[in-house]
């Protein structure tokens, strides 16, 4: 009895979370523009997605920004996590708590602070400011992901490497990087997802001429629902699903 109640409870929560998404995916194959009744299966909306040039352009822009920002954030964040682990320096603890605060702080505050910053220093909003903003919100996630793995390492490994004459860079490159690889990959994939999905920070930090997918979806939905958006949303959901699942498996397998 108790087990049945638990089972029902868990099922209800997952249905609540997933039914809307499944309905969305199902509708992306529905062969009708207005009605919500099922009118037959079609690939039409997906074809339109890849022939409609504004959407295609936004998709390419999004992917480029996500790729560049996730790679940069991963490089910086990995170095940063290593520095937090290996070195004692002034402001180390303050900085590490700060990384958590950045992660928790409301997106909108980061968005407007960067907007005012860029405008004040005379940097016109566009692809460059968007990229800088994305690197900024991805960075803490990489640092935390990599640090949580590195903090479990045996410190003797470093001493051995040093005793054998390795420089700091060699030790990082040949000992730490390979051992950290699962966490680095996970941090990179999560950054990629974060960047691809971000709405709030991007809203303030991109210029009027540089469109990215989430903002395109935002403005399209506000004007009314179109079946292409269903197809686009389904594609983006599946993309995130794959990256998140891989990131999860990579970190769990090697613990």
């Amino acid at each position, binding site marked *: 009895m108790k087990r049945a109640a638990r089972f029902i409870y868990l099922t209800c929560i997952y249905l609540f979370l997933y039914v809307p998404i499944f*309905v969305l995916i199902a509708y992306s194959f529905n062969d009708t523009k207005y009605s919500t009744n099922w009118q037959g299966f079609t690939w039409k909306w997906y074809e339109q997605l890849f022939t409609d040039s504004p959407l295609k352009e936004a998709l390419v822009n999004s992917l480029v920004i996500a790729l560049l920002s996730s790679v940069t954030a991963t490089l910086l964040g990995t170095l940063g996590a290593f520095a937090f682990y290996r070195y004692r320096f002034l402001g180390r603890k303050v900085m590490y708590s700060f990384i958590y605060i950045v992660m928790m*702080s*409301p997106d909108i505050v980061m968005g407007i602070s960067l907007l005012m910053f860029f405008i004040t220093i005379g940097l016109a909003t566009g692809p460059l400011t968007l990229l800088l903003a994305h690197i900024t919100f991805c960075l803490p996630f990489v640092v935390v992901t990599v640090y949580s793995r590195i903090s479990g390492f045996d410190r003797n490994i470093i001493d051995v490497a040093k005793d054998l004459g390795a420089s700091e860079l060699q030790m990082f490159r040949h000992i730490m990087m390979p051992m950290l690889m699962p966490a680095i990959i996970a941090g990179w994939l999560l950054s990629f997802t974060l960047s691809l999905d971000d709405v709030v920070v991007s809203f303030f930090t991109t210029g009027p001429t540089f469109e990215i997918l989430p903002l395109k979806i935002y403005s399209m939905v506000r004007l009314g629902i179109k079946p292409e958006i269903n197809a686009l949303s389904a594609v*983006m959901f599946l993309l995130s699903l794959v990256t998140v699942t891989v990131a*999860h498996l990579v970190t769990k397998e090697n613990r």
Partner: protein
Amino acid sequence: MVRSRFRNFSIGSTMLWIIIFVVVPYIFVVLFSFLERDPVTTVAWRFTLAGYGEILSPVFLKVCWYSLLLALGTTVISLLVAYPFAFFLVRLPEAYRRILLLLMIIPFWTSSLIRTYALVILFKANGIINTFLLWTGVIDEPLNLLYTQTAVFVGLVYTLLPFMVLPLYTSIHKLDWRLIDAARDLGATSRHIFFRIILPLTMPGIVAGSTMVFLPALGLFYIPDFLGGARSMLIGNFIKNQFLTTGNWPVGSAASVFLTLIMCLFLYVYFLSSRKAHTGGMGDMA
């Protein structure tokens, strides 16, 4: 102490990035909240408290009150739903637990915008809920589901529930069950065990989860934009309007400082609760 170029570079790159793109911009927010609005140059370099004066005006206070209530409601409902949920999840056999946990992590990381949009489809007048209810004969006319305050509330809970579950799960997972066995052996009642042991020890998870639900629930402006009517506004919508439509930076900055103060309050409570319980809840989100 190791001194090398690599050391300085690895420390410096991250520190510099955070200082330039987080600390300095945030100083701008605080600074601009005390400046005067200027129609030509957006802000004039004259000190004033007008920005803060305006967020004490009835217009903002009304938005603020509505938004805080909504965020509080979202947090309480999510907590009540997620707490037993996380508990059941922890007690499941390993194989099921891994899959179900992943199924909770996926919505945590996938786009909230798309998940909110999925609700729009569900709630439309000729959407699936209305079609179903009409078909079963529960209702005769389509219900007005979209563009209501209820829709915004459901949207917030739907979007933010995973953000409550995962920190709770982490902190319940770390719970030392021997303490509960010991308490039971010593004759504690179930109620006692829950309020005296389980609740205090999982408090960091509760606070972390509440922070991760409450703060976005104040700021996610696209949820009322998609699901709410003209009157439903979050603090996030208010801030957005200050920057996009009215161009009033000082007021928008003052409202952002207010949001940050709320965050600091949560972080302080988190700090207190985790010092008491010695178990984390905020980390390990992947």
